[in-house]
């Protein structure tokens, strides 16, 4: 799509008859955008046939990988690049010299792999990430994924006495579960969400990061006097606001409030903590503490404005350091804080933060060499591979540790410190991966986006969002999940 214009209008004098013909042809091609979809359906499935036989189980090979079977690995080639995975593939090839590894990296996960799932011939390991992520809920619901429990219960790469699951950061295993014990996804990267800011800018105001909302308003007022806005956010993608708003709700009202929201319980959004937090954010907008024009900015534009010092605080995730590396000045002193709460009556202490896995790796149920895919993951979860990743792409991994002995960038350092401060108070709202459309389009754009643009009040936003959540709870075309 979209390329039709270029070829049709090459010559200036397109004749009338040609045009009619071409418009007819174009109509027939472009109108049924859905039709090319059909080309990939109904391939039938080759269930058990063609699967690699199990290899010999040894201490070095606890997953019993067939040492001569081909292993195919498809990586999302995004912000983290592909070098870290290529390095891990080399380790696999060294361990199984007779096996061939077919490695490829693409940004078009869905276009490349959807037909293969439909034909029943998916690869053995996939990093299902990026804009073309395949819907996890559907993949799980349709039994397309392999349970990763054997991997989690296998001895870890570095220490045979420790299971893989015991080497992971908090929340990683839970995030891979949907309903029940089975673990479908292993998130490899570890993302810290929160309020990102320049320590230097805050110092120039002679202020500390505010822990209560009154202090927050005072800092914003002070910044405003200096011609700096308090906040900005990705106005075109307002589902960045929850990165600091949701943990604030948890801090004010306790984890149960977020769990109720995730479970799509009736009236979950009408909880007083939700109302108080919405009103707090709305106050920022009403008092003019949000950078003017923010609702029309996309994520890159808002990050650039923030890096230029036009705004102090930005709700975002730890990828922002890499994504905006080119515009963040060297002396910016980037760091992150857990969101500000309301006051001392909040249920959880200051430091409550949202951190969770990113880069979801999956092993398809119909993979020919699923054990190989899991072994590759086991290699990636070793200390050496994890360090390699952190050093190369400035992000933490699911491996708990792996930061000693390497120089951390300022933002990463801030993230590690914030995690230490949080301790057990790490929250992980699941609505983001359970109900993508609800979270992004409805709560994010139609609810929070409208409220933060000042077009609806918090009360109206809550009513609207509760309506969306109730609708989603009733919609039987989507699969529903509950916290265990």
């Amino acid at each position, binding site marked *: 799509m979209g390329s039709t214009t270029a070829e049709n209008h090459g010559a200036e*004098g397109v004749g009338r008859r040609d045009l*009619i013909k071409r418009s007819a042809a174009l109509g027939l091609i472009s109108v049924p955008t859905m039709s090319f979809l059909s080309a990939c359906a109904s391939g039938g499935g080759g269930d058990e046939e063609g699967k690699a036989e199990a290899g010999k189980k040894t201490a070095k090979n606890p997953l019993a990988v067939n040492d001569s079977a081909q292993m195919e690995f498809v990586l999302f080639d995004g912000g983290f690049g592909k070098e870290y995975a290529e390095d891990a593939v080399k380790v696999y090839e060294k361990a199984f010299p007779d096996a061939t590894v077919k490695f490829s990296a693409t940004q078009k996960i869905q276009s490349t792999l959807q037909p293969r799932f439909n034909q029943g011939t998916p690869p053995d390991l996939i990093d299902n990430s990026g804009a073309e992520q*395949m*819907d996890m809920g559907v993949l799980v619901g349709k039994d397309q994924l392999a349970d990763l429990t054997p991997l989690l219960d296998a001895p870890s790469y570095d220490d045979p006495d420790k299971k893989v699951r015991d080497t992971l950061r908090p929340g990683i295993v839970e995030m891979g579960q949907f309903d029940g014990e089975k673990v479908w996804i292993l998130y490899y990267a570890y993302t810290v969400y929160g309020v990102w800011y320049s320590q230097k800018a805050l110092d120039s105001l002679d202020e500390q990061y505010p822990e209560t909302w009154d202090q927050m308003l005072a800092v914003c007022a002070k910044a405003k006097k200096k011609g700096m806005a308090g906040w900005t956010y990705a106005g075109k993608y307002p589902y960045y606001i929850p990165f600091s708003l949701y943990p604030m709700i948890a801090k004010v009202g306790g984890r149960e409030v977020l769990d109720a929201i995730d479970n799509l319980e009736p009236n979950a959004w009408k909880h007083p903590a939700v109302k108080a937090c919405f009103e707090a954010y709305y106050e920022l907008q009403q008092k003019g503490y949000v950078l003017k024009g923010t609702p029309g900015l996309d994520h890159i534009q808002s990050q650039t404005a923030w890096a230029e010092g036009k705004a102090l605080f930005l709700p975002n995730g730890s990828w922002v350091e890499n994504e905006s590396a080119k515009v963040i000045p060297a002396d910016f002193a980037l760091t992150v804080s857990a969101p500000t709460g309301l006051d001392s009556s909040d249920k959880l202490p200051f430091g409550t933060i949202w951190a969770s896995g990113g880069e979801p790796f999956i092993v398809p149920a119909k993979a020919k060499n699923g054990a190989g895919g899991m072994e590759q993951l086991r290699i990636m979860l070793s200390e050496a591979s994890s360090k390699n990743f952190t050093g190369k792409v400035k992000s933490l991994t699911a491996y708990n540790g792996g930061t000693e002995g390497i120089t951390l960038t300022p933002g990463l350092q801030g993230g590690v410190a914030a995690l230490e401060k949080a301790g057990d108070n790490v929250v992980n709202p699941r609505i983001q991966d359970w109900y993508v459309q609800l979270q992004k389009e409805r709560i994010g*754009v139609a609810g929070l986006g409208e409220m933060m643009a000042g077009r609806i009040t918090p009360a109206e936003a809550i009513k609207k969002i509760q309506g969306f959540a109730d609708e989603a709870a009733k919609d039987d075309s989507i699969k529903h999940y509950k916290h265990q």
Partner: protein
Amino acid sequence: MQHGKYRFIVGFLTVPLGLYALFVIWPFIQSIYYSFTDWTGLSPEFRMIGFGNYERMLEDEVFWKSLQHSLLFAVLLPLVTLGLALFFAFMINVGGRRRRGGPVISGVRGSAFYKIVYFFPQVLSIAIVALLFAFAYNPNSGAINSALRAVGLDGVQPLWLGDPDLALWCVMAVLVWSTVGFFVVLFSAGMASIPADLYEAALLDGAGRATTFFKVTLPLLWDTVQSGWVYMGILALGAESFAVVQIMTTGPGGPDYSTTVMVLYVYQKAFRDGQAAYATTIGVALLVVTLAFAAIVMKLGRRERLEY
């Protein structure tokens, strides 16, 4: 030589018709078939669910919004684009002041230059155009608001794409900008083939520019305008509107669904939400809308063909 004529014709038509059937008709039929299933698009298993998807579609608020926007696109965009293009083409070819010793009809001064300038946007792919305008609409540092500030309109700083009341118009403006040049060139070609003596006669009878346009140019250009209308309508319902909405707008789909269009909704349902069957259902609705649009334009536009 009469016998075997049909065999001869059929022989030539088999391959193209076969290709057409395979790549156009068959996918249509398949899509309609899938709209009666619960296919996710992510696994080969699905079952028939009758009219479930259609019932759901009729109750789907977002679907109605996207339909409304698509229809608005299909009606307004051709009207504005073709109107502008006709005006520009007329001024370039016919609308000029008569110059001593020059030809009887000519365009305004510098028309050759304008012709090239109008065609410029065609050289850029729609994705680039959309991206450029996304920057221009940036409320903070974008070209439009900066220009407003430069002329002292500091108080007028709209959010453009961030404002539900403006976003759809912003998108339409981009589509008009990027397609009008093509029609200027197309209509210029059409006008060039209108014999000059018709204009001379009209001028001798004392016809002004407006009269010349409505009584001579437009009737003789009607065929071209009509096919342009269908072409533009299909662009507005299909690929081009998808590209600009997907690239430029909030969400994408606009603040509070203010810019969502049917093609975008098909894409989101199929590729974001894993509901391919429902997406094909919306696709079928889009097919109906497009066919209806073409039929209406053909019907309304039917006029006696003028020979000259």
